[in-house]
Protein backbone atom coordinates (compact mmCIF):
# COMPACT_ATOMS: atom_id res chain seq x y z
CA UNK A 1 0.00 0.00 0.00
CA UNK A 2 1.27 3.45 -0.85
CA UNK A 3 2.11 6.03 1.81
CA UNK A 4 -0.61 8.56 2.43
CA UNK A 5 -0.62 11.90 4.12
CA UNK A 6 -3.25 12.12 6.86
CA UNK A 7 -5.17 15.30 7.68
CA UNK A 8 -7.59 16.37 10.38
CA UNK A 9 -11.04 16.86 8.80
CA UNK A 10 -12.10 19.52 11.31
CA UNK A 11 -8.97 21.55 10.82
CA UNK A 12 -9.41 21.20 7.10
CA UNK A 13 -12.98 22.45 7.37
CA UNK A 14 -11.75 25.39 9.45
CA UNK A 15 -9.14 26.35 6.85
CA UNK A 16 -11.72 26.17 4.10
CA UNK A 17 -14.11 28.29 6.14
CA UNK A 18 -11.51 31.07 6.29
CA UNK A 19 -11.00 30.79 2.53
CA UNK A 20 -14.70 31.15 1.75
CA UNK A 21 -15.02 33.79 4.47
CA UNK A 22 -12.51 35.89 2.57
CA UNK A 23 -14.38 35.36 -0.65
CA UNK A 24 -17.89 35.99 0.67
CA UNK A 25 -18.31 38.80 3.22
CA UNK A 26 -21.86 37.51 3.88
CA UNK A 27 -20.55 34.37 5.53
CA UNK A 28 -20.96 34.25 9.30
CA UNK A 29 -20.08 31.43 11.69
CA UNK A 30 -22.39 30.26 14.45
CA UNK A 31 -21.39 27.89 17.20
CA UNK A 32 -22.97 26.20 20.19
CA UNK A 33 -20.07 25.90 22.62
CA UNK A 34 -18.47 24.03 19.75
CA UNK A 35 -16.35 26.49 17.78
CA UNK A 36 -12.83 25.24 18.54
CA UNK A 37 -13.76 21.58 18.22
CA UNK A 38 -15.38 22.36 14.90
CA UNK A 39 -12.27 24.02 13.55
CA UNK A 40 -13.70 27.53 13.71
CA UNK A 41 -10.84 29.11 15.66
CA UNK A 42 -9.02 30.52 12.61
CA UNK A 43 -12.29 32.04 11.33
CA UNK A 44 -12.87 33.60 14.73
CA UNK A 45 -9.39 35.05 14.75
CA UNK A 46 -9.71 36.45 11.27
CA UNK A 47 -13.32 37.65 11.48
CA UNK A 48 -14.23 38.12 15.15
CA UNK A 49 -17.26 40.24 14.25
CA UNK A 50 -18.62 37.50 12.02
CA UNK A 51 -18.52 34.71 14.57
CA UNK A 52 -21.41 34.38 17.02
CA UNK A 53 -21.32 32.08 20.01
CA UNK A 54 -24.64 30.80 21.33
CA UNK A 55 -23.72 28.38 24.03
CA UNK A 56 -25.29 24.96 24.29
CA UNK A 57 -28.41 25.91 22.40
CA UNK A 58 -28.66 23.86 19.24
CA UNK A 59 -32.36 24.48 18.58
CA UNK A 60 -31.96 28.19 19.06
CA UNK A 61 -28.87 28.40 16.90
CA UNK A 62 -30.68 26.91 13.90
CA UNK A 63 -33.45 29.49 14.28
CA UNK A 64 -30.95 32.32 14.58
CA UNK A 65 -29.17 31.04 11.48
CA UNK A 66 -32.46 31.08 9.60
CA UNK A 67 -33.21 34.65 10.68
CA UNK A 68 -29.72 35.81 9.73
CA UNK A 69 -30.09 34.20 6.34
CA UNK A 70 -33.30 36.18 5.71
CA UNK A 71 -31.12 39.29 5.85
CA UNK A 72 -28.72 37.97 3.22
CA UNK A 73 -26.09 36.45 5.47
CA UNK A 74 -24.70 32.99 4.75
CA UNK A 75 -24.53 31.29 8.16
CA UNK A 76 -22.29 28.28 8.70
CA UNK A 77 -23.35 26.39 11.83
CA UNK A 78 -20.98 23.71 13.06
CA UNK A 79 -21.28 21.43 16.05
CA UNK A 80 -21.33 17.78 17.06
CA UNK A 81 -23.39 15.96 14.42
CA UNK A 82 -26.33 14.55 16.46
CA UNK A 83 -26.79 17.92 18.15
CA UNK A 84 -27.32 19.80 14.89
CA UNK A 85 -29.49 17.14 13.26
CA UNK A 86 -31.49 14.92 15.61
CA UNK A 87 -31.79 17.50 18.41
CA UNK A 88 -33.06 20.47 16.35
CA UNK A 89 -34.65 18.38 13.60
CA UNK A 90 -37.88 20.39 13.49
CA UNK A 91 -35.95 23.68 13.32
CA UNK A 92 -33.90 22.22 10.48
CA UNK A 93 -37.06 21.09 8.72
CA UNK A 94 -39.12 24.27 9.14
CA UNK A 95 -36.68 27.14 9.61
CA UNK A 96 -34.10 26.00 7.05
CA UNK A 97 -35.92 23.56 4.75
CA UNK A 98 -39.48 24.88 4.56
CA UNK A 99 -38.20 28.48 4.71
CA UNK A 100 -35.53 27.62 2.08
CA UNK A 101 -32.83 29.55 3.88
CA UNK A 102 -29.24 29.73 2.75
CA UNK A 103 -27.71 28.08 5.82
CA UNK A 104 -24.90 25.52 5.91
CA UNK A 105 -24.96 23.07 8.79
CA UNK A 106 -21.82 21.07 9.46
CA UNK A 107 -22.09 18.06 11.73
CA UNK A 108 -18.68 16.99 12.92
CA UNK A 109 -17.53 13.87 14.74
CA UNK A 110 -20.29 12.18 12.74
CA UNK A 111 -20.93 8.45 12.52
CA UNK A 112 -19.20 6.56 15.32
CA UNK A 113 -16.06 8.67 15.24
CA UNK A 114 -16.86 9.77 18.80
CA UNK A 115 -16.49 6.06 19.39
CA UNK A 116 -15.89 5.71 23.10
CA UNK A 117 -18.39 8.41 24.07
CA UNK A 118 -21.19 6.06 23.10
CA UNK A 119 -24.54 6.33 21.32
CA UNK A 120 -25.51 9.77 22.68
CA UNK A 121 -22.59 11.15 20.70
CA UNK A 122 -22.83 8.89 17.67
CA UNK A 123 -24.68 10.09 14.63
CA UNK A 124 -25.90 7.15 12.59
CA UNK A 125 -29.20 8.57 11.42
CA UNK A 126 -28.28 12.11 10.34
CA UNK A 127 -28.35 11.35 6.61
CA UNK A 128 -31.59 9.39 6.99
CA UNK A 129 -33.50 12.18 8.70
CA UNK A 130 -32.05 15.23 7.00
CA UNK A 131 -32.51 13.84 3.51
CA UNK A 132 -36.26 13.64 4.08
CA UNK A 133 -36.35 17.45 4.11
CA UNK A 134 -37.25 18.79 0.67
CA UNK A 135 -34.59 21.00 -0.88
CA UNK A 136 -31.79 20.23 1.57
CA UNK A 137 -28.49 19.09 0.06
CA UNK A 138 -26.72 16.33 2.03
CA UNK A 139 -22.99 15.75 1.54
CA UNK A 140 -20.51 13.40 3.16
CA UNK A 141 -17.05 14.16 1.76
CA UNK A 142 -14.54 11.33 1.42
CA UNK A 143 -11.14 12.93 1.98
CA UNK A 144 -9.59 16.24 3.08
CA UNK A 145 -9.23 17.56 -0.45
CA UNK A 146 -12.91 16.93 -1.01
CA UNK A 147 -13.85 18.60 2.29
CA UNK A 148 -12.27 21.83 1.06
CA UNK A 149 -13.93 21.62 -2.32
CA UNK A 150 -17.26 20.90 -0.68
CA UNK A 151 -16.99 23.98 1.55
CA UNK A 152 -16.33 26.14 -1.51
CA UNK A 153 -19.17 24.53 -3.45
CA UNK A 154 -21.76 24.94 -0.70
CA UNK A 155 -20.76 28.55 -0.10
CA UNK A 156 -21.63 29.18 -3.72
CA UNK A 157 -24.79 27.03 -3.69
CA UNK A 158 -27.93 28.92 -2.65
CA UNK A 159 -30.01 26.95 -0.17
CA UNK A 160 -29.80 24.79 2.93
CA UNK A 161 -27.04 22.19 3.11
CA UNK A 162 -25.98 19.54 5.59
CA UNK A 163 -22.36 18.36 5.52
CA UNK A 164 -21.06 15.63 7.78
CA UNK A 165 -17.43 15.15 8.65
CA UNK A 166 -15.61 12.92 11.11
CA UNK A 167 -12.83 13.64 13.54
CA UNK A 168 -9.94 11.14 13.12
CA UNK A 169 -7.34 12.13 10.56
CA UNK A 170 -8.18 10.96 7.05
CA UNK A 171 -5.81 9.91 4.28
CA UNK A 172 -5.48 12.33 1.40
CA UNK A 173 -6.65 10.29 -1.59
CA UNK A 174 -7.32 12.97 -4.18
CA UNK A 175 -5.15 15.66 -5.65
CA UNK A 176 -6.01 19.26 -6.40
CA UNK A 177 -7.38 18.32 -9.83
CA UNK A 178 -10.17 16.32 -8.19
CA UNK A 179 -13.51 17.77 -9.24
CA UNK A 180 -16.36 17.93 -6.79
CA UNK A 181 -19.78 18.93 -8.00
CA UNK A 182 -22.93 18.91 -5.86
CA UNK A 183 -25.15 16.02 -6.95
CA UNK A 184 -22.48 14.20 -8.94
CA UNK A 185 -20.79 10.95 -7.98
CA UNK A 186 -17.20 10.47 -9.07
CA UNK A 187 -15.85 7.29 -10.60
CA UNK A 188 -12.51 7.06 -8.82
CA UNK A 189 -11.48 3.78 -10.42
CA UNK A 190 -13.09 1.89 -13.27
CA UNK A 191 -13.95 -1.82 -13.19
CA UNK A 192 -16.40 -4.39 -14.50
CA UNK A 193 -17.27 -7.05 -11.88
CA UNK A 194 -18.92 -4.87 -9.25
CA UNK A 195 -19.39 -1.23 -8.24
CA UNK A 196 -18.50 -0.16 -4.72
CA UNK A 197 -20.08 3.13 -3.74
CA UNK A 198 -18.43 4.56 -0.66
CA UNK A 199 -18.90 7.71 1.28
CA UNK A 200 -17.52 10.00 3.95
CA UNK A 201 -15.43 8.83 6.88
CA UNK A 202 -15.17 5.27 5.50
CA UNK A 203 -14.71 6.11 1.85
CA UNK A 204 -11.00 5.38 2.27
CA UNK A 205 -11.86 1.95 3.72
CA UNK A 206 -13.72 1.18 0.50
CA UNK A 207 -10.81 2.63 -1.48
CA UNK A 208 -8.31 0.29 0.15
CA UNK A 209 -10.76 -2.62 -0.13
CA UNK A 210 -10.84 -2.02 -3.88
CA UNK A 211 -7.03 -2.33 -3.95
CA UNK A 212 -7.21 -5.64 -2.06
CA UNK A 213 -9.85 -6.96 -4.46
CA UNK A 214 -7.89 -5.82 -7.47
CA UNK A 215 -4.94 -7.90 -6.23
CA UNK A 216 -7.28 -10.88 -6.04
CA UNK A 217 -8.29 -10.43 -9.65
CA UNK A 218 -11.67 -8.82 -9.04
CA UNK A 219 -12.33 -5.79 -11.18
CA UNK A 220 -13.93 -3.12 -9.01
CA UNK A 221 -15.48 0.13 -10.09
CA UNK A 222 -15.11 2.51 -7.16
CA UNK A 223 -17.48 5.45 -6.88
CA UNK A 224 -17.32 8.29 -4.39
CA UNK A 225 -20.98 9.19 -3.87
CA UNK A 226 -20.33 12.18 -1.61
CA UNK A 227 -23.66 13.87 -2.31
CA UNK A 228 -26.45 11.68 -0.93
CA UNK A 229 -29.03 14.28 -1.85
CA UNK A 230 -29.63 15.05 -4.61
CA UNK A 231 -28.35 11.59 -5.48
CA UNK A 232 -26.68 10.97 -8.84
CA UNK A 233 -29.37 8.73 -10.37
CA UNK A 234 -27.77 8.56 -13.79
CA UNK A 235 -24.49 7.29 -12.48
CA UNK A 236 -26.18 4.72 -10.23
CA UNK A 237 -28.21 3.28 -13.11
CA UNK A 238 -25.18 3.34 -15.40
CA UNK A 239 -23.08 1.42 -12.87
CA UNK A 240 -25.91 -1.06 -12.30
CA UNK A 241 -26.21 -1.71 -16.02
CA UNK A 242 -22.48 -1.97 -16.62
CA UNK A 243 -21.31 -3.92 -13.55
CA UNK A 244 -24.48 -5.76 -12.53
CA UNK A 245 -23.83 -5.60 -8.81
CA UNK A 246 -23.66 -2.70 -6.37
CA UNK A 247 -22.15 -2.51 -2.88
CA UNK A 248 -22.59 0.55 -0.66
CA UNK A 249 -20.23 1.41 2.21
CA UNK A 250 -21.08 3.99 4.87
CA UNK A 251 -20.62 4.75 8.54
CA UNK A 252 -24.37 5.12 9.04
CA UNK A 253 -27.42 3.03 9.74
CA UNK A 254 -28.50 0.74 6.93
CA UNK A 255 -31.88 2.36 7.44
CA UNK A 256 -32.09 5.53 5.43
CA UNK A 257 -28.48 6.15 4.48
CA UNK A 258 -26.53 5.94 1.23
CA UNK A 259 -27.49 2.28 0.71
CA UNK A 260 -31.15 3.14 1.02
CA UNK A 261 -30.81 6.13 -1.29
CA UNK A 262 -29.14 3.96 -3.94
CA UNK A 263 -31.72 1.19 -3.47
CA UNK A 264 -34.55 3.71 -3.86
CA UNK A 265 -33.17 4.62 -7.28
CA UNK A 266 -32.50 1.05 -8.41
CA UNK A 267 -35.84 -0.34 -7.21
CA UNK A 268 -37.59 2.17 -9.43
CA UNK A 269 -35.26 2.39 -12.39
CA UNK A 270 -33.19 -0.78 -12.70
CA UNK A 271 -33.55 -3.46 -9.99
CA UNK A 272 -30.08 -4.77 -9.28
CA UNK A 273 -28.58 -7.07 -6.61
CA UNK A 274 -27.05 -5.00 -3.82
CA UNK A 275 -25.05 -5.45 -0.67
CA UNK A 276 -25.28 -2.70 1.93
CA UNK A 277 -22.39 -2.34 4.36
CA UNK A 278 -23.03 -0.16 7.38
CA UNK A 279 -24.49 -0.46 10.85
CA UNK A 280 -27.64 -2.45 11.35
CA UNK A 281 -30.58 -1.44 13.49
CA UNK A 282 -28.92 -1.05 16.90
CA UNK A 283 -27.26 1.48 19.20
CA UNK A 284 -23.58 1.07 18.39
CA UNK A 285 -21.15 -0.11 21.02
CA UNK A 286 -18.26 1.91 22.43
CA UNK A 287 -14.48 1.60 22.38
CA UNK A 288 -11.51 2.56 20.21
CA UNK A 289 -12.68 3.85 16.85
CA UNK A 290 -10.84 1.46 14.54
CA UNK A 291 -11.91 -1.55 16.60
CA UNK A 292 -15.46 -0.32 16.59
CA UNK A 293 -15.44 -0.05 12.79
CA UNK A 294 -14.21 -3.65 12.78
CA UNK A 295 -17.15 -4.70 14.92
CA UNK A 296 -19.44 -3.56 12.11
CA UNK A 297 -17.46 -4.95 9.19
CA UNK A 298 -16.22 -1.57 8.05
CA UNK A 299 -12.50 -2.30 7.84
CA UNK A 300 -11.01 -2.63 4.37
CA UNK A 301 -10.25 -6.36 4.58
CA UNK A 302 -13.76 -7.04 5.85
CA UNK A 303 -15.28 -4.98 3.08
CA UNK A 304 -13.11 -6.86 0.57
CA UNK A 305 -14.32 -10.22 1.99
CA UNK A 306 -17.97 -9.17 1.80
CA UNK A 307 -17.56 -7.97 -1.77
CA UNK A 308 -15.64 -11.09 -2.83
CA UNK A 309 -18.39 -13.38 -1.50
CA UNK A 310 -21.03 -11.21 -3.15
CA UNK A 311 -19.25 -11.35 -6.51
CA UNK A 312 -18.68 -15.07 -6.11
CA UNK A 313 -15.14 -15.11 -7.47
Amino acid at each position, binding site marked *: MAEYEYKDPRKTFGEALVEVGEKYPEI*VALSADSSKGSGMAPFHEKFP*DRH*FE*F*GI*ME*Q*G*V*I*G*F*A*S*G*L*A*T*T*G*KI*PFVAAIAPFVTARPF*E*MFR*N*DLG*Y*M*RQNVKVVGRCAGITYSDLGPTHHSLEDVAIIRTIPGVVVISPGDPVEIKKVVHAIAEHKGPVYVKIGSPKMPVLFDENYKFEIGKGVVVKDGTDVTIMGIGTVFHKAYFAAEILENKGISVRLVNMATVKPIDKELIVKCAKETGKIVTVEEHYLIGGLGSAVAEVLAREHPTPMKMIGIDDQFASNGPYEELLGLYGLQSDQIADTVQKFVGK
Partner: protein
Amino acid sequence: MYKLTNEEVLELEKEALQVRRNVLRMIKASKAGHAGGALSSADIITALYFKIMRVDPKNPKWPQRDRFVLSAGHKCLALYAVLAEKGFFEKEILDTYGKLKSRLPGHPDMYKIPGVETNTGALGHGLSIAGGMALGVRMDGYDSKVYVVMGDGELAEGSNWEAAAACSHHKLDNILVFVDRNRLQISGPTVKVMSYEPLRARWEAFGWSVREIDGHNMREIVDNATDIPFEKGKPSLIIANTIKSKGLSFAEDKVNYHYWKATPEEIEQAEKDLNEIERRLANG
Protein backbone atom coordinates in the same frame (compact mmCIF):
# COMPACT_ATOMS: atom_id res chain seq x y z
CA MET B 1 -42.64 58.62 24.03
CA TYR B 2 -45.04 58.87 21.07
CA LYS B 3 -48.46 60.25 21.95
CA LEU B 4 -51.44 59.33 19.78
CA THR B 5 -54.07 62.02 19.15
CA ASN B 6 -57.72 61.14 19.67
CA GLU B 7 -58.21 61.19 15.90
CA GLU B 8 -55.36 58.74 15.41
CA VAL B 9 -56.84 56.43 18.03
CA LEU B 10 -60.20 56.46 16.29
CA GLU B 11 -58.59 55.83 12.93
CA LEU B 12 -56.70 52.82 14.25
CA GLU B 13 -59.85 51.46 15.86
CA LYS B 14 -61.58 51.71 12.49
CA GLU B 15 -58.71 49.83 10.85
CA ALA B 16 -58.95 47.15 13.52
CA LEU B 17 -62.67 46.81 12.86
CA GLN B 18 -61.95 46.31 9.18
CA VAL B 19 -59.33 43.73 10.13
CA ARG B 20 -61.95 41.85 12.18
CA ARG B 21 -64.29 41.99 9.19
CA ASN B 22 -61.53 40.44 7.08
CA VAL B 23 -61.09 37.68 9.66
CA LEU B 24 -64.81 36.99 9.50
CA ARG B 25 -64.64 36.99 5.70
CA MET B 26 -62.06 34.18 5.82
CA ILE B 27 -64.09 32.25 8.38
CA LYS B 28 -67.11 32.55 6.10
CA ALA B 29 -65.04 31.10 3.26
CA SER B 30 -63.77 28.09 5.19
CA LYS B 31 -66.35 27.82 8.01
CA ALA B 32 -63.52 27.30 10.49
CA GLY B 33 -60.22 28.68 11.74
CA HIS B 34 -58.09 29.72 14.71
CA ALA B 35 -60.14 32.84 15.32
CA GLY B 36 -59.68 33.11 19.11
CA GLY B 37 -55.98 33.93 19.18
CA ALA B 38 -56.26 35.95 15.96
CA LEU B 39 -58.84 38.26 17.49
CA SER B 40 -56.92 38.69 20.75
CA SER B 41 -53.87 39.88 18.79
CA ALA B 42 -55.73 41.74 16.02
CA ASP B 43 -55.42 45.17 17.64
CA ILE B 44 -51.70 44.75 18.25
CA ILE B 45 -50.96 43.60 14.69
CA THR B 46 -53.16 46.38 13.27
CA ALA B 47 -51.31 49.01 15.30
CA LEU B 48 -47.95 47.58 14.24
CA TYR B 49 -48.69 47.73 10.51
CA PHE B 50 -50.68 50.96 10.48
CA LYS B 51 -48.74 53.09 12.94
CA ILE B 52 -45.50 51.53 14.10
CA MET B 53 -43.69 49.50 11.50
CA ARG B 54 -41.74 50.79 8.53
CA VAL B 55 -43.01 48.62 5.67
CA ASP B 56 -43.86 49.18 2.02
CA PRO B 57 -46.54 46.90 0.58
CA LYS B 58 -45.27 47.71 -2.92
CA ASN B 59 -41.76 46.61 -1.95
CA PRO B 60 -42.22 43.88 0.65
CA LYS B 61 -38.58 42.72 0.53
CA TRP B 62 -37.08 46.18 1.02
CA PRO B 63 -33.91 45.45 3.07
CA GLN B 64 -34.36 48.38 5.49
CA ARG B 65 -37.93 47.39 6.38
CA ASP B 66 -39.03 46.45 9.86
CA ARG B 67 -39.83 42.75 10.27
CA PHE B 68 -42.86 41.10 11.78
CA VAL B 69 -42.60 37.53 13.06
CA LEU B 70 -45.80 35.79 14.03
CA SER B 71 -44.32 33.20 16.32
CA ALA B 72 -47.77 31.86 17.15
CA GLY B 73 -48.47 31.06 13.51
CA HIS B 74 -51.99 29.83 14.19
CA LYS B 75 -53.01 33.49 14.69
CA CYS B 76 -52.42 34.03 10.96
CA LEU B 77 -56.03 35.04 10.26
CA ALA B 78 -55.11 38.34 11.94
CA LEU B 79 -51.91 38.67 9.92
CA TYR B 80 -53.64 37.92 6.61
CA ALA B 81 -56.42 40.35 7.51
CA VAL B 82 -53.93 43.13 8.24
CA LEU B 83 -51.73 42.45 5.19
CA ALA B 84 -54.78 42.55 2.91
CA GLU B 85 -55.99 45.76 4.53
CA LYS B 86 -52.54 47.29 4.16
CA GLY B 87 -52.47 46.43 0.46
CA PHE B 88 -49.93 43.60 0.36
CA PHE B 89 -52.40 41.55 -1.67
CA GLU B 90 -55.89 41.67 -3.17
CA LYS B 91 -58.72 41.23 -0.69
CA GLU B 92 -60.41 38.70 -3.00
CA ILE B 93 -57.68 36.26 -1.95
CA LEU B 94 -59.24 36.26 1.54
CA ASP B 95 -62.17 34.31 0.07
CA THR B 96 -59.85 31.41 -0.78
CA TYR B 97 -59.05 30.71 2.87
CA GLY B 98 -59.42 26.96 3.52
CA LYS B 99 -59.67 26.09 -0.18
CA LEU B 100 -57.35 23.64 -1.95
CA LYS B 101 -53.93 25.21 -2.57
CA SER B 102 -55.05 28.57 -1.22
CA ARG B 103 -52.30 31.14 -0.91
CA LEU B 104 -53.49 31.56 2.66
CA PRO B 105 -52.80 28.26 4.44
CA GLY B 106 -53.85 27.58 8.04
CA HIS B 107 -50.33 28.61 9.05
CA PRO B 108 -48.43 31.24 7.08
CA ASP B 109 -46.04 30.46 4.22
CA MET B 110 -43.68 33.27 3.19
CA TYR B 111 -43.52 31.98 -0.39
CA LYS B 112 -47.28 32.01 -0.89
CA ILE B 113 -48.20 35.57 -0.05
CA PRO B 114 -46.22 38.83 0.10
CA GLY B 115 -45.60 40.36 3.50
CA VAL B 116 -45.26 37.09 5.41
CA GLU B 117 -41.69 36.88 6.76
CA THR B 118 -41.53 33.38 8.30
CA ASN B 119 -43.09 29.94 8.07
CA THR B 120 -44.41 29.51 11.57
CA GLY B 121 -47.05 27.20 12.99
CA ALA B 122 -44.84 24.95 15.05
CA LEU B 123 -44.87 26.95 18.28
CA GLY B 124 -41.59 28.04 19.82
CA HIS B 125 -39.63 28.86 16.65
CA GLY B 126 -40.35 32.53 16.06
CA LEU B 127 -38.18 34.19 18.64
CA SER B 128 -34.94 32.52 17.48
CA ILE B 129 -35.64 33.46 13.87
CA ALA B 130 -36.50 37.01 14.95
CA GLY B 131 -33.25 37.15 16.92
CA GLY B 132 -31.32 36.16 13.81
CA MET B 133 -33.09 38.89 11.84
CA ALA B 134 -32.30 41.45 14.52
CA LEU B 135 -28.66 40.41 14.47
CA GLY B 136 -28.57 40.54 10.67
CA VAL B 137 -30.02 44.04 10.30
CA ARG B 138 -27.72 45.26 13.06
CA MET B 139 -24.70 43.88 11.16
CA ASP B 140 -25.92 45.78 8.10
CA GLY B 141 -26.08 49.00 10.10
CA TYR B 142 -29.83 49.40 9.54
CA ASP B 143 -32.06 50.82 12.26
CA SER B 144 -34.76 48.28 11.34
CA LYS B 145 -36.71 46.72 14.18
CA VAL B 146 -38.06 43.22 14.57
CA TYR B 147 -41.51 42.79 16.10
CA VAL B 148 -42.79 39.47 17.37
CA VAL B 149 -46.17 38.21 18.58
CA MET B 150 -46.19 35.13 20.79
CA GLY B 151 -49.00 33.28 22.50
CA ASP B 152 -48.99 32.90 26.26
CA GLY B 153 -49.49 29.13 26.08
CA GLU B 154 -46.62 29.04 23.59
CA LEU B 155 -44.25 30.15 26.33
CA ALA B 156 -44.13 26.59 27.67
CA GLU B 157 -41.91 25.67 24.71
CA GLY B 158 -38.34 25.53 25.99
CA SER B 159 -36.89 26.78 22.71
CA ASN B 160 -38.36 30.22 23.49
CA TRP B 161 -36.15 30.47 26.53
CA GLU B 162 -33.05 29.58 24.55
CA ALA B 163 -33.94 32.45 22.26
CA ALA B 164 -34.77 34.76 25.16
CA ALA B 165 -31.32 34.20 26.64
CA ALA B 166 -29.56 34.64 23.30
CA CYS B 167 -31.39 37.90 22.47
CA SER B 168 -30.29 39.47 25.71
CA HIS B 169 -26.79 37.96 25.59
CA HIS B 170 -26.25 39.48 22.17
CA LYS B 171 -27.86 42.77 23.32
CA LEU B 172 -30.50 42.79 20.60
CA ASP B 173 -32.26 45.97 21.62
CA ASN B 174 -33.86 46.29 18.18
CA ILE B 175 -36.40 43.60 19.00
CA LEU B 176 -39.84 43.99 20.59
CA VAL B 177 -41.95 41.02 21.61
CA PHE B 178 -45.63 41.11 22.42
CA VAL B 179 -46.89 38.28 24.58
CA ASP B 180 -50.58 38.04 23.72
CA ARG B 181 -51.72 37.18 27.21
CA ASN B 182 -55.27 36.06 26.60
CA ARG B 183 -54.83 33.59 29.49
CA LEU B 184 -56.17 30.65 27.47
CA GLN B 185 -54.71 27.89 25.36
CA ILE B 186 -56.28 24.74 23.83
CA SER B 187 -56.94 22.80 27.04
CA GLY B 188 -57.93 25.60 29.36
CA PRO B 189 -56.53 28.52 31.34
CA THR B 190 -52.82 28.82 30.64
CA VAL B 191 -51.69 29.04 34.26
CA LYS B 192 -53.57 25.80 34.96
CA VAL B 193 -52.23 23.92 31.94
CA MET B 194 -48.61 25.00 32.53
CA SER B 195 -48.03 28.07 34.58
CA TYR B 196 -45.70 30.78 33.31
CA GLU B 197 -45.96 32.87 36.45
CA PRO B 198 -44.28 35.03 37.49
CA LEU B 199 -44.37 36.07 33.84
CA ARG B 200 -42.82 39.51 34.12
CA ALA B 201 -40.09 38.40 36.53
CA ARG B 202 -39.15 35.50 34.26
CA TRP B 203 -38.50 37.75 31.28
CA GLU B 204 -36.71 40.30 33.42
CA ALA B 205 -34.52 37.54 34.83
CA PHE B 206 -33.61 36.65 31.24
CA GLY B 207 -32.40 40.21 30.71
CA TRP B 208 -35.44 41.74 29.01
CA SER B 209 -37.01 45.11 29.69
CA VAL B 210 -40.70 44.56 30.27
CA ARG B 211 -43.88 46.64 30.21
CA GLU B 212 -47.47 45.59 30.68
CA ILE B 213 -50.42 47.05 28.79
CA ASP B 214 -54.03 46.54 27.77
CA GLY B 215 -53.59 44.87 24.40
CA HIS B 216 -56.87 46.23 23.07
CA ASN B 217 -56.10 49.86 23.87
CA MET B 218 -54.57 51.51 20.80
CA ARG B 219 -53.11 54.34 22.78
CA GLU B 220 -51.30 51.99 25.13
CA ILE B 221 -50.08 49.76 22.29
CA VAL B 222 -48.69 52.55 20.14
CA ASP B 223 -47.35 54.79 22.88
CA ASN B 224 -45.32 51.90 24.29
CA ALA B 225 -44.29 50.12 21.12
CA THR B 226 -42.84 53.24 19.46
CA ASP B 227 -40.50 53.70 22.36
CA ILE B 228 -37.94 50.91 21.93
CA PRO B 229 -35.54 49.97 23.25
CA PHE B 230 -37.15 50.46 26.63
CA GLU B 231 -33.61 50.26 27.99
CA LYS B 232 -30.50 50.61 25.87
CA GLY B 233 -28.79 47.27 25.22
CA LYS B 234 -31.80 45.18 26.24
CA PRO B 235 -34.50 43.50 24.16
CA SER B 236 -37.99 44.82 24.94
CA LEU B 237 -41.14 42.92 25.76
CA ILE B 238 -44.73 43.94 26.23
CA ILE B 239 -47.11 41.75 28.18
CA ALA B 240 -50.37 42.57 26.43
CA ASN B 241 -53.40 41.63 28.47
CA THR B 242 -56.03 40.59 25.97
CA ILE B 243 -59.30 38.75 25.57
CA LYS B 244 -59.46 35.68 23.39
CA SER B 245 -61.98 36.04 20.52
CA LYS B 246 -62.21 39.77 21.28
CA GLY B 247 -65.13 41.32 19.40
CA LEU B 248 -67.39 38.25 19.23
CA SER B 249 -69.99 38.53 21.99
CA PHE B 250 -70.67 34.79 22.13
CA ALA B 251 -67.03 33.69 22.08
CA GLU B 252 -65.04 36.18 24.12
CA ASP B 253 -62.85 34.55 26.77
CA LYS B 254 -64.23 31.09 25.96
CA VAL B 255 -61.74 28.26 25.61
CA ASN B 256 -63.82 26.30 23.09
CA TYR B 257 -63.49 29.07 20.49
CA HIS B 258 -59.72 28.54 20.16
CA TYR B 259 -60.56 26.91 16.83
CA TRP B 260 -63.92 28.25 15.77
CA LYS B 261 -66.13 25.89 13.76
CA ALA B 262 -68.62 28.52 12.79
CA THR B 263 -72.36 27.81 12.55
CA PRO B 264 -74.51 30.05 10.30
CA GLU B 265 -76.14 31.50 13.42
CA GLU B 266 -72.76 32.38 14.91
CA ILE B 267 -71.65 34.06 11.70
CA GLU B 268 -74.85 36.10 11.70
CA GLN B 269 -74.24 37.11 15.31
CA ALA B 270 -70.60 37.94 14.55
CA GLU B 271 -71.74 40.31 11.82
CA LYS B 272 -74.15 41.98 14.21
CA ASP B 273 -71.36 42.33 16.78
CA LEU B 274 -69.04 44.00 14.28
CA ASN B 275 -71.83 46.30 13.05
CA GLU B 276 -72.38 47.33 16.64
CA ILE B 277 -68.69 48.23 16.99
CA GLU B 278 -69.00 50.26 13.80
CA ARG B 279 -71.97 52.17 15.20
CA ARG B 280 -70.01 52.89 18.36
CA LEU B 281 -67.00 54.17 16.43
CA ALA B 282 -69.19 56.34 14.19
CA ASN B 283 -70.46 58.12 17.25
CA GLY B 284 -66.84 58.91 18.16
